[in-house]
Structure formats: C-alpha cells, structure tokens
C-alpha cells in the first residue's frame, strides 16, 4: 500500500460519489438501479479485461475500479431504498426494484466479464503482432 494508491482511490472516489449523487437527484430510486447495474458491468469489464490482457495493476486501474466504480455503486442505499419503498407500500415497485437490482446486477456483471475477456484477448493479440 502506498500513498499514490490512496490518493488515486480518493480522487476517483470523489468523482464516483458525485456522479451517483447526481443520478440519485435526477432519478430518485431508479438512480440507485442505474448506478448499480452500470457499475456492475463496468467493474466486471475492467477486472476481466486486465486479467485477460495481462495488464499489470497500477494506481490508475486501482483508482478506476476501487475508487470510481466502487464509490459509484452503493449497497447501503440499495438496502435503504427497499425499506423506504416498503414504507410507502409500493409493493409492485418493490418487487420490480428487487428483481432488477439482484438479477440485473448479476447479469450485467456476467456480460461485463464476457466483453472484458473478449476485449482483453484482442488487445493482447494486437500487442504481439
């Protein structure tokens, strides 16, 4: 662990938090869904792209993954949202919210991984040529 890593996580985490806040202001509960689904795709893409292309981990990739995307997505708001939606008795919406978040989150992670591996392999092949 070094100072550069911490600064990178903080800087990108700052941006990720602001982006999440703005989407929350514009879309309310749906904002949480958007950040989480999008973030799952991006993190899986980045993780498996780096793995497959054998790109060494650096302070930039740490900042992007742990900082930007980690801060962009949120588990605590997801949990609190379900409590808030239950409080206003919007049962149908609660069901939709849960299914999209849980199933959609996993599926977008899966497709992010697929695309990340594919791109990673292509980059590696391109570098060798």
């Amino acid at each position: 662990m070094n100072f550069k890593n911490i600064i990178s996580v903080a800087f990108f985490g700052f941006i990720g938090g602001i982006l999440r806040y703005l989407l929350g202001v514009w879309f309310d509960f749906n904002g949480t869904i958007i950040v989480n689904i999008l973030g799952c795709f991006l993190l899986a893409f980045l993780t498996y792209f780096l793995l497959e292309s054998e790109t060494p981990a650096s302070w930039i990739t740490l900042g992007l993954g742990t900082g930007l995307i980690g801060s962009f997505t949120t588990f605590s708001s997801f949990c609190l949202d379900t409590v808030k939606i239950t409080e206003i008795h919007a049962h149908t919406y609660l069901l939709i919210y849960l299914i999209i978040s849980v199933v959609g989150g996993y599926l977008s992670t899966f497709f992010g991984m697929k695309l990340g591996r594919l791109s990673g392999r292509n980059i590696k092949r391109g570098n060798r040529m």
Partner: protein
Amino acid sequence: MIYFVGLGAALGSILRYLVTTAIKKKSQTIWPTATLLINLSGSFLLGMLYGLATIKVAYLIIGVGILGGFTTFSTMNTEILGLVRSRKCIYAWWYAGTSYLVGIALSFLGVILGNIIK
C-alpha cells in the same frame, strides 16, 4: 453541496480500500469477508442515519457521501461471479443470500433504532 458529497465519498472509498487490504492481508479465504463486513455495517449505519432524521447536510456528507462510497454493489457482484466461475456455487449463493437478506434486515433495524433514539 455537491462537493461535500464528493469529499464524503472519497473518504468512504479510502476506508473501504484500507479495510479490504487489511482483511485480505490477514486471512486468505475464498469467502469475501471484507466486502460483506463493509456492506452490512454500512447498510445498518445508513438506516440509522435515515431513522435519526438528521439535518440535510449531515445526511448528504455521511449518508450519501461516506456510507455510499464505503459500501459497494459492483464489487459484491464481481465476487459472486468469481465464486460461480471457480465452481463454488454454494459459496456464491450463501454470499449473495447473506448480503441481500441480512443487509436489508440490518437497514430496517437501523431505521427503527434511529427512530427510537431520535
């Protein structure tokens, strides 16, 4: 106002990074202890903060900023997928189940506790 959220999120991200590296250094298990601990504690605290019905600035800095940046949905899902890919499906189900069910329950409990304290 927006910068307060950003600063909180930066702090939350650093905390998550430090907790994760510290736990991973100590124990090398297949069970993603660090993220689980972060997400469950963060969900409880956010619920409590919401229950306390604190002033808006405090909620934005601590809730949306620090706790929002501390907890993470994307890392959890990448870890679930990682467990499935390494053919540890039972672990994946347990990890996902514990995160979602206990997380929501703790959030609910936090709201009630916050309401009582208030």
